[in-house]
Every structure is written in C-alpha cells, then in structure tokens.
C-alpha cells in the first residue's frame, strides 16, 4: 500500500509578518487536510505560540523586523521554547540569496522554500519534512539537521561516530 501523510494529525505554526502570505500558507495547509494551524505575525507572537501550544512543524519567514527568523530558529534549536529541539522547520522567505540560505542552514533549518513559491514545491517540502525525518547533528557550534545532502566517503580525523 502506498504511504500517505495525514496532515490532520500534525500541528503547524506559521510565522509571517505579511498577513496575506500567512493566510495563503494556512489555506494551503487546510486544503491538504490540516486542522490545527496557528499563525503568528512576529517573533514575539511566535515565541508565545510555541510556549503555549503543541507545535510539530514550524514554517517561518526570515524577515521578521525588528527581529529575524534566524533568531526564532536558533531559539527552537536551543530548546528554550519548550517544544522539540528537532522540530522540522521550513523557511519560506523572499530573502533567498545564497548568503541567506546558508545562514538559515547554519541556524538549523530543515528545508528552505524561496518566495515566490509554487504549490507543488510547497506540497513536496511539507510531505518531505514529515515523511522523511533527517538525522541531527549535536555539536558545540551547531544543533540541527545533518547538513550533508550527499554521502561522500571520509575516513579522516574527527569523523563523526
């Protein structure tokens, strides 16, 4: 039997200062079958939502003035928000230059989708972060999904155990 994702069993939090963008992401999730979608429009609202609700998947914009979505990602990965440190995090942002993508990756994001995005890319990433959880790396300088996308042979010093 083919596998399915039951989005009604997943609690989402969308963080986006742009009301229409947040509404659209919420409506797409509801159409995919989600029933619990929290929405926050700022860093502070997001922290409050994370602390007072069970959230399984976080979708966040990087541009959250006066704070940054990177701060939010780091807060989740540090375990200070009360939820799972290994919560899947999808960044949805128009700040999509290479530097921003690398910064998000190094803050511990699970997936990145650049705005403007298409519904196919959105669906594929939502399915992927739930159906294909990634291994995590815990080190002094980084806590987040394993950033290696390709498995290359390495037998040098400090190889991860």
């Amino acid at each position, binding site marked *: *039997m*083919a*596998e*399915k*994702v*039951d*989005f*009604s*069993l*997943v609690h989402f939090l969308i963080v986006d200062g*742009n009301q*229409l*963008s947040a*509404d*659209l992401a919420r*409506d*797409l999730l509801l*159409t*995919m*079958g989600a029933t619990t979608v929290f929405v926050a429009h700022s860093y502070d609202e997001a922290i409050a939502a994370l602390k007072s609700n069970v959230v*399984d*998947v976080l979708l966040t914009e990087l*541009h959250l*003035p006066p704070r940054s979505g990177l701060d939010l990602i780091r807060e989740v990965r540090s375990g200070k928000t009360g939820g*799972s440190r*290994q919560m*899947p995090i999808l960044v949805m*942002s*128009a*700040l999509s230059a290479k530097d921003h993508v690398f910064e998000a990756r190094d803050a511990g994001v699970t997936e990145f989708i650049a*705005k*403007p*995005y298409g*519904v*196919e890319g*959105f*669906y*594929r990433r939502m*399915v992927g972060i*739930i*159906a*294909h*959880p*990634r*291994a*995590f*790396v*815990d*080190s*002094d*300088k*980084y806590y987040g999904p*394993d950033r290696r996308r390709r498995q290359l042979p390495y037998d040098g*010093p*400090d190889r*991860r*155990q």
Partner: protein
Amino acid sequence: MTAAKSKLLPPVEELRARAVNSRTGMDLRLSPAVLRRLEEVVNESRERFVIDLAARLRKLRTSVQTVLDGDMTQQDMLALVFDESLQIKGMGGTIGYNVLSLIATTLNDFVAGRTELGRIQFEILQLHIDAMYVVIADRITDNGGILEDQVLSGLRAAVRKFG
C-alpha cells in the same frame, strides 16, 4: 586547535509514525486532483494580493514624493523600499505576476545595504516603481512579453552601471 566533536543523532520518527500511514491523508506524490485544489486556493487569494500589492506600490510612490518634498530622509525611504520590495517580490510570483517579482527583486538588490542615493540612482529607483505600477495596472501576468523583457533588461543594466 582541534575541531569540535559532534554527535550524529538518528532521525526522530515520532511525527512520521503518527502522521504517515497507508489509509488516510494525502499521497506522498502530489496528485493532479490535489494540485488543482491547491491552485484554486491560490486563485481565490489573487484579488486580495493584487489590492495589497497596489497599496504597497502607492506607499512606495508616496515615500519617494515625501523625500522630494524634504519631509523624509533617504535613509528612511530606503529602509521602507527594502521592506516593501521584498514583500512584492515574495507575493507577485505566488499569484502569477512573475515579472512583478523579477522587477521587485532587482529593486530589492539595488537598495539592500544603501543609506543614500545620488540623482541617477534615485531615478533608477523611481523607474522600478513606475514599471511595477504598469505591471499591476495592465495585469501583466507570467513573465510578460518582449516589451516587459526589454524593460527588465534595461533596469538590470541600469543597476549594473549605476548601482
């Protein structure tokens, strides 16, 4: 100096175990029927997006005029243009206004990190705003046509030369 030691933690399967099954929910691969429903959601939000985009463009034009009137600093205007062009970039292509997103991207790259503009740079900024106005007023969707392509190429060339 030694590299930081790190541990590789296995994937947490709890969410997958809860949400993935073989009976209820959405197929892992997007089906044509679900794709149509998702596209309908986007279509339904299109008009609200267009109204919002038009309001953002008015805000940009007003800020330019306010600077010309001497009632706003260039630095404040550039911060506003950065924010608004980023939003326009993110919103335009989502509802099919790809060329709008492309112009907004050029504008956003142009103003990023700037705190002041010379006369020519100020005109380049205004040209971007005017071009986006035309896209919205004429409802130019997708990537536009030959003319839009030429306008975009011209804006990019101006940014390269005077940016």
